[in-house]
C-alpha cells in the first residue's frame, strides 16, 4: 500500500489558500510530475499576480514572480535565454484572460516552447471576488452584484478555444479538478504538456476549471457541484488542439 506523502518538489510551507480551494491540488500535481520526470533541478516556474502570487514559496524549483498578466512574456525571456530548461507559468483568469491577454496570445502565436497552467475559477480571488473575464453570465460578484449582465459586461472568454486557433499552439486542453477521476486526468494533461515542451513541440496550455468557495459564497461541496453544473457546460472539457508545431 503506497503511503500518501508530500511530493519532494513541494516545500513544507503551509499554503495560504482558502479551505476548499483547488490551487493546492494543482500545485501538488505539478510537484508530483516534477518528481516523476525528475526535472525539479531544471524547472523554472513563473507565478502571477493573484491568489497564486506566493506560489514561489511552495515549489522547490527556481521561481520568478511576474507582474500582473506578464508571466508569458517573462517566461519567454527565461526560455529564450535558457532553452534547455523547463519553463512554466501559473496564471489565474484575471491575470491571463484580462490584463495579460496580449502576452498569452503572442506567446502562443510564437509557439513559445513553454507551458501555461491556467487556473480558471471564473472570479478574481485575491482582490476579493470581482467579475473576471471568465465570470459566467448571471454570476454574482463584487462588481456584478446583480449578476453578470452580458448586455453591459459582455461575454466570458473561452481561452482554450481561442488559443487553439493559433498555429503556434501544440497543446490546448481543458480539464477540471472537481473529483478524483478528473484530478487524475488533469495530472495526465499537465504531464503531457511538460513532455511536449521537453520535445520542443511548441506552446502548451492546460486550462484547469477550479473552485473559489470563498468568493463564490458557497461551501466547498456546493462549489464543486456548481463547477460541474454551471462551469463545465460553458467551458467543455477536452483537447482543443494537439499537434507538433515544429
Amino acid at each position: 500500500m503506497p503511503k500518501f506523502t508530500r511530493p519532494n518538489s513541494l516545500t513544507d510551507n503551509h499554503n495560504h489558500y482558502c479551505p476548499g480551494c483547488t490551487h493546492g491540488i494543482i500545485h501538488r500535481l505539478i510537484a508530483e510530475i516534477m518528481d516523476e520526470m525528475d526535472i525539479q533541478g531544471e524547472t523554472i516556474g513563473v507565478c502571477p499576480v493573484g491568489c497564486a502570487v506566493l506560489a514561489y514559496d511552495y515549489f522547490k524549483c527556481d521561481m520568478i514572480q511576474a507582474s500582473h498578466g506578464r508571466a508569458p512574456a517573462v517566461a519567454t525571456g527565461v526560455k529564450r535565454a535558457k532553452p534547455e530548461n523547463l519553463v512554466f507559468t501559473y496564471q489565474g483568469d484575471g491575470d491571463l484572460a484580462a490584463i495579460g491577454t496580449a502576452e498569452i496570445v503572442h506567446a502562443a502565436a510564437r509557439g513559445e516552447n513553454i507551458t501555461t497552467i491556467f487556473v480558471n475559477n471564473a472570479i478574481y480571488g485575491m482582490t476579493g471576488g470581482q467579475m473576471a473575464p471568465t465570470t459566467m453570465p448571471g454570476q454574482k460578484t463584487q462588481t456584478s452584484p446583480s449578476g453578470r449582465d452580458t448586455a453591459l459586461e459582455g461575454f466570458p472568454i473561452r481561452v482554450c478555444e481561442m488559443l487553439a486557433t493559433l498555429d503556434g499552439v501544440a497543446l490546448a486542453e481543458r480539464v477540471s479538478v472537481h473529483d478524483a477521476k478528473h484530478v487524475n486526468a488533469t495530472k495526465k494533461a499537465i504531464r503531457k504538456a511538460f513532455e511536449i515542451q521537453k520535445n520542443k513541440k511548441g506552446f502548451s496550455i492546460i486550462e484547469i476549471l477550479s473552485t473559489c468557495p470563498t468568493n463564490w459564497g458557497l461551501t466547498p461541496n456546493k462549489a464543486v457541484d456548481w463547477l460541474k453544473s454551471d462551469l463545465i457546460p460553458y467551458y467543455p472539457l477536452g483537447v482543443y488542439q494537439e499537434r507538433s508545431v515544429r
Partner: protein
Amino acid sequence: MSKTLMKGNEALAEAAIRAGCKCYFGYPITPQNEIGAYMSERIRKNGGVFLQAESEIGAINMVYGCSATGTRCMTSSSSPGVSLKAEGISYLAGADLPCVIVNVQRGGPGLGTIQPSQADYWQTTRAMGHGDLRLPVLAPYSVQEMVDMTAEAFKIAEEFRTPVMLLADGLLGQMMEPVSFNEIGGENKDDGQSSPNWAASGHKNKREKNIITSLFLDPIELETAINERFERFEELRAKYTRSESTNTDDADIIVTAYGSTARVIQSAMEMAREEGIKVGTFRPITLSPFPEKALKEATKSAKKVLVVEMSMGQMVDDVKSALEYKLPVEFFGRQGGFVPGPQEILEVIRRMK
C-alpha cells in the same frame, strides 16, 4: 583600428553586443528602430537572441525573465514606449535585476513628435516606475559615447544589480559620427550567461532554490530591502558620478546642459568667448546620481548659471537644488523637436552678461 561612420543607434547596438549582451527584446518605435534592425541580424549571427515583442510591456517583461536567469540583456525604446515599460522597470528594480534600458527620447506628451527631445528627464530620474526607486542614468552626447556608455551601463548594472537607463535622444540616435570600438575592446570573453548565485536558472539539485520577486509582504523585509538598495545607490554615487567642466575657472556664466544639447552649448561658449564674455560649460554625464559636488565646484567663480534643455525645463530643478538656490539660474529651452542653435543660446548669454 580606424574610425568608421555609424549612426548612434547602430553604434549602440554594436557596442552592446561587444559588451556581451546576449539577448535583446524590443518593439518598433521611431527614432530608435535601427537598434532593433541591427540586433535582428548581428546578435543572432553572434549566437544571441533578438525577439520583437508584442509590445513594450512584453519586451520589458522578457528582459525581466531573461535577466532573472542571470543572462546579460537589454531593451530599447523611445519616450511613449518607455512610459509603457515603466511598470516592468519598477519590477526589475524591486527584484534587483541588472539590465540596460535605452531611451532615445522624442517629444511628448502623448504621441508628440518623432523629433529629438529631452522632456523625459523627470520621468527618468524621478519617477521611472512606482515605488521608492533610484535608477542610474547615463547621458551620452556623441555617437562615441553611445558606444562607451553602453559598455559601462552593463558594467554598472551587474556590479550594483540594478537596471541602468541610457538616456539619449533622436539626434544622437539618428546622427552619424566617426566611432571607434577600441576602448570597449573586442567581443566580451565573458559569455554573459555565467548564472550568478542569485539567478533563477534551474538549481540542478546542487543548491537551494532561488526566488526572483519584488513582493515583500513583511514590512520589515521590505524596509530592509529598500534600505539596502539605497545604500547600494550611495556606493554607486561615490564611484560612478560623472560630469565634464570646460573653461570654468574664470567663468562669470556657467552654461549647463546634458546629452546632445551639451554639444550646442560648447559652440555657444566659443562664440561668447570670442566676444569676450567669460563663459564656461558644465555637462552632467550621469543624470542620476546628479553630479552636485562637481557642479558646485564648476560654478565657484560664476555669478550666473544658464540651463539649456530641449524641454520646458526639467534638469534645471536639479541644478538649482545642487546650488542650494544661492546662484541665479536661468533657463532656455526649445520644444517640439527643435534643437537649440548656438546663436540663440549666445543671445541669451549676451542678455545675462
